[in-house]
């Protein structure tokens, strides 16, 4: 990855505006007898990176799936920009301005990198099947714009060499970058990243940290980041939320959470 590494470190984000972009209110999700989320509440302030940590099975991905409306919320509410998103359907979420990546990769295996990213632009474009079929001029214009944006991201994320290769044949780390590009192409305002650094080695994690911050700064993004790589979480997060057994057990600055006893007991272990 050839990402400029200027903005490594915890320099405060100049775009910070202190509005709240996402409010999670007392969310409960149950699967049969299992309570995966138990009255979880927290906010993501606009322009900040909020890290979310917690043991395996704590409910982090479940929360993401609620935000994407892939899972139904049993109780509680989720507000984006002050509006409940629970009235929206899954496909409307990206249009609201929430983009995401997936923990276990969810790429379109047969498509090329470029096409994968272009699907990400779906919600940002308007053409319908008829205008597509007869190539109306405005469709071509729109298409050119999506392509330009995708090309931009391809070069930012250093994917040029593989732009036309079907994603299934790419190494894991590259696929993760494709997912990131796909999430970014629709210019989301809130980005949900589910374990973006898993499978990366130490150097790659460092590069990734700076990449996230650059992207955030350039696009005025807010980010909710789930990660087990504590180094990364501590480095990039402005705030951290910790979950355990579906409950929020701590919230605060990275340093506060890292020092929290319940977090150490449930998550970090004593050696760290």
């Amino acid at each position, binding site marked *: 990855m050839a990402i400029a590494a200027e903005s490594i470190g915890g320099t405060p984000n100049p775009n910070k505006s202190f509005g709240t972009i996402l409010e999670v209110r007392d969310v409960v999700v149950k699967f049969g007898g299992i309570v995966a989320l138990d009255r979880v509440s927290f906010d993501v302030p606009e322009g900040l990176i909020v890290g979310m*940590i917690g043991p*395996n*099975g704590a409910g982090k991905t479940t929360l993401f799936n609620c935000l994407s409306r892939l899972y139904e919320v049993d109780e509680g509410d989720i507000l984006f920009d002050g509006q409940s998103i629970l009235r929206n359907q899954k496909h409307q979420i990206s249009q609201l301005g929430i983009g995401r990546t997936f*923990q276990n990769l969810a790429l379109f295996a047969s498509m090329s990198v470029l096409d994968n990213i272009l699907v990400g632009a779906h919600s940002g474009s308007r053409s319908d099947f008829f205008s597509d079929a007869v190539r109306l001029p405005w469709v071509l214009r729109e298409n050119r714009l999506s392509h330009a944006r995708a090309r931009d991201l391809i070069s930012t994320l250093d994917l040029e060499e593989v732009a036309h290769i079907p994603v299934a044949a790419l*190494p894991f*780390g590259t696929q993760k970058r494709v997912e990131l590009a796909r999430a970014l192409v629709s210019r989301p305002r809130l980005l949900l990243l589910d374990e973006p650094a898993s499978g990366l080695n130490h150097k790659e994690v460092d590069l990734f940290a700076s990449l996230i911050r650059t992207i955030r700064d350039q696009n005025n993004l807010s980010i909710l980041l789930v990660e*087990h790589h504590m180094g990364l979480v501590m480095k990039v997060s402005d705030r951290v939320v910790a979950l355990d057994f579906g409950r929020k057990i701590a919230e605060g600055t990275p340093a506060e959470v890292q020092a929290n006893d319940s977090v150490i007991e449930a998550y970090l272990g004593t050696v760290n």
Partner: protein
Amino acid sequence: MVAMLELKNVEAFYGPIRALHGISLSVEQGGIVTVLGANGAGKTTTLRAICGMIKTTGSIKFEGREIFGKLTESVARLGIAHVPEGRGTFEKLTTEENLRLGAFTRRDRNAVAEDMDRVYGYFPVLAERREQQAGTLSGGEQQMLAIGRALMLRPRLMLLDEPSFGLAPMIVQEIFRIMRSINENDGVSMLLVEQNAALAMDLADQAFLLETGEVVMSGDTKTMKEDESIRTSYLGY
């Protein structure tokens, strides 16, 4: 003493693409070897080659016998367990069925039951999720399941492809503890691919560094840890 596993000049192919360009490495009886390398270096491919999962050339010997060209299932039946990249969960089966499949080749029912309890002891969360459809487990739970399933084989050699993948820090420590204990108590040898190089280097006696399908450096872990480039790229200090 013959090496437990010995790869000589192994090349591997995805269709026409050559992903390994002649790898040689060996794992001693009872030893732990780690393979490091950047994304796409060929670590996973090396493990796949050993298990006969892709087209390969060269020689692969297990306990002195050539296993090159054997079917994957026959390799497994020799006592080689593989925790694959991406976990390879049987998504529609339950947690317990996944574990039972791990012991498919074994006939010692009682010991299997014991091992099942042992795995549940290592990963209590799996015990709670016994009847849950494995595909709905969280990422980390599935990773535990993959490791548990490999243990159910009672292997003599374990191939571990990023066992810490997606696991919470505490569980990672736990898993490395388990690996060490299995290695020490049961004499299980291990070939470990791991991004958390610091932990891997602590556990292993030998390390191999791969770059674009070739071994570029190897040696015992103590000396390797001293290496400047390894420190900056993999260990981060």
